[in-house]
């Protein structure tokens, strides 16, 4: 054989080896796990329990054979509640881990920082947090973006509907005057301003306070002003750190409005153990008592406690669980990870969630893929949150009026 012939033979062999090795890699890649990349604030209870609930759902799905014959792999990155960390987490998940779908999320501020990175990669994203309508404005026209949590204005509309329904159902409850005590930051201020529009038929008075989270913690001046106003409904919009001290200081000055409402993003885990909690109204997407009226919620509750030996204390736990199932079911329906097929499959979502409601994606004011639209009106009764409204998920009658300790 000539030298030319030998060289040709070597090339053929090298090509054959490359094809065989490459095919091997392709097969291995095809059989590898489906990667879901989650970004959550792990030091916060929402992220801590949300991520645990996600892992619970992944383990259940994998134990049942996975999706499309492949296992799910959940890769969680901590955003530390910082926008720049969230953006870096998206970059890492996209480039290092090469995830197939982005999931997770809690804070709107963090998510606004993550959005430029998400837009860069344009992968399917199913987000459970970020309620600010500023986020909605930033994701207009993104067909790969699915949002599960109700936007802030949807929440406001939901409460208007809820209070109207409660007043109609229980004539003893009458709301003409409301006093809004809101933390002086962006969260409290925007909530108050939104509420003024939503509840324009009430006589509203508002006053800001410095949250304990920002070095405050003395609410007595605001509470005294509320007491002077004599409202039918008193609502404070602040953080979990304010919850018990506000109740204590209200008790101290003898302030007992007929309706005492708290609207923090999350309650302290042991708030219900205080006798001061009894009768306090709360807003939220879920309460443990929903397990009494929802088999899916009961299953989630039992499975979570069995796996982690703790009770889910924030609605971000069932939201995280929902996040995984919605994505997994859509991949199964699509039969592929192809982006267009997956978007179409997600649009067909009809998932009975542990939050009590069935999740579907419909248009909101600005985007095409909005999940839940309603919040719930809850009340602390005997140490547990009970659902007062919507009536189809109600687990208790309202305790009215609030009497204090």
């Amino acid at each position, binding site marked *: 054989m000539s030298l030319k012939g030998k060289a040709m033979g070597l090339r053929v062999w090298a090509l054959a080896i490359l094809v065989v090795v490459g095919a091997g890699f392709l097969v291995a890649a095809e059989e590898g796990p489906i990667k879901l990349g989650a970004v959550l604030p792990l*030091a*916060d*209870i929402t992220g*801590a329990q949300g991520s645990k609930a996600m892992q619970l759902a992944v383990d259940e799905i994998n134990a049942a054979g996975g999706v499309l014959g492949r296992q799910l792999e959940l890769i969680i990155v901590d955003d530390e*509640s910082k926008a720049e960390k969230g953006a870096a987490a998206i970059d890492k998940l996209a480039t290092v881990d090469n995830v197939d779908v982005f999931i997770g999320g809690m804070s709107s501020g963090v998510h606004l920082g993550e959005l430029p990175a998400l837009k860069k990669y344009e992968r399917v994203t199913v987000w459970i947090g970020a309620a600010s309508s500023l986020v909605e404005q930033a994701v207009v026209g993104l067909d790969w973006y699915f949002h599960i949590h109700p936007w802030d204005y949807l929440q406001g509309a939901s409460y208007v509907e809820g209070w109207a329904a409660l007043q109609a159902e229980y004539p003893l409850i009458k709301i003409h005057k409301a006093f809004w005590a809101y933390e*002086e930051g962006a969260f409290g201020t925007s909530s108050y301003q939104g509420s003024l529009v939503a509840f324009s038929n009430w006589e509203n008075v508002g*006053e*800001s*306070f*410095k949250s*304990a*989270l*920002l*070095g405050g*913690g*003395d609410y*007595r*001046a*605001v509470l*005294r*002003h509320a007491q002077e106003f004599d409202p039918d409904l008193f609502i404070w919009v602040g*953080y*979990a*750190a*304010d*919850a*018990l*001290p506000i109740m*204590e*200081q209200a*008790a*101290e*000055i*003898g302030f007992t409005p007929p309706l005492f409402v708290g609207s923090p993003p999350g309650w*302290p*885990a*042991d708030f219900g*153990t*205080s*006798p*001061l909690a009894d009768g306090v109204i709360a807003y939220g997407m879920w309460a443990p008592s929903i397990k009494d009226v929802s088999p899916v919620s009961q299953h989630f509750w039992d499975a979570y406690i069995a796996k982690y030996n703790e009770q889910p204390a924030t609605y971000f736990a069932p939201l995280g669980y929902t996040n995984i199932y919605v994505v997994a079911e859509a991949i199964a329906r699509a039969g592929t990870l192809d982006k267009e097929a997956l978007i179409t499959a997600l649009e067909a979502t009809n998932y009975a969630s542990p939050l009590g409601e069935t999740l579907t994606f419909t248009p909101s004011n600005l985007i095409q893929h909005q999940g839940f639209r309603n919040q719930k009106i809850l009340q602390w009764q005997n140490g547990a949150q009970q659902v007062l409204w919507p009536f189809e998920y109600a687990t208790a009658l309202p305790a009215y009026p609030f009497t204090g*300790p």
Partner: protein
Amino acid sequence: MTLFRTLRRWQLLLLLASLGVPIVLMLWKPYVLIEGLQRGGLYAVIALPMALILGVVGIINLAHGEFMMLGAYFAYWMGVYAGLDPLVAMIPAVVAFALLGAITYVLTIRRALKAPELNQLLLTFGMAMVGTEFANLMWTSQPLKPHLSYVYSSVALGKLRFGTYAFIYTAAAIVLLVLLQLFLRKTRLGRAALAVGQNPRGARLVGIDVNRTYLLIFSVSIALVGALGAMFLTRHSVFPSAGSPFTMKSFCLIAMAGIGNLPGVVWGGFGLGIAEALVSSFRGYGGWADVVFFAVLVAVIMGKSYRRQTA
């Protein structure tokens, strides 16, 4: 009349204001005076240990609030695991935090005593960050607070109803001030500490063990602020960043009173507490409380500076 003659005009004005303002408030808005004294007591009592360290050791402890936060966590977990009320947990907290203070001093502060002031600030700032992140890793950012029914005890005088428990901070500030003054003026150790604070080299020349004095004062201060963390917990939630605002407030009070002026810290705390309560008593003006705090601080510092120049 002799008293009035010996007082300067500004001192006389200050005296009249100190007597007049409470009387006016008592007649006009009595709850402002009550809640201002309670609020100011909290500021003052937390600031005193920091003033002690700054006055004797000469270091601005930027981790002051973080030690208080760790004290509050200590009391919380003593309640969970040993069933101790936070006020009772102050006793083990004193011991535990004296030890923590001593270790911190030996391992870090002592090595930075001769370093430039900026390095000392960076050191204590770093300690504050370590404290916050440690709490975050150990107990997450979830706020914790025990339910204590006595913290919302109150009395009603006619139409006025006010909480009585928060006077614990007012009382604690006065008691701690008296005890510290007695310690510094009447005991051998205290006098040695005062001497070290005024002139460490001179103190060393007359045979005072300066390093041991620093160790003692730093440990006592950390023990006090750790125990005060337990008292703080009775009315406040604890979370990793709960202490840092108190570092700033304490430092401002000390700056206003002057280094080494412990009574000034307490009266300044009461004054600022009442000023904040007064501003907050007008609906919609609560947000100005911080402005008032810093405006009073700036005014006092400028006034002192002016007096020094004209003296």
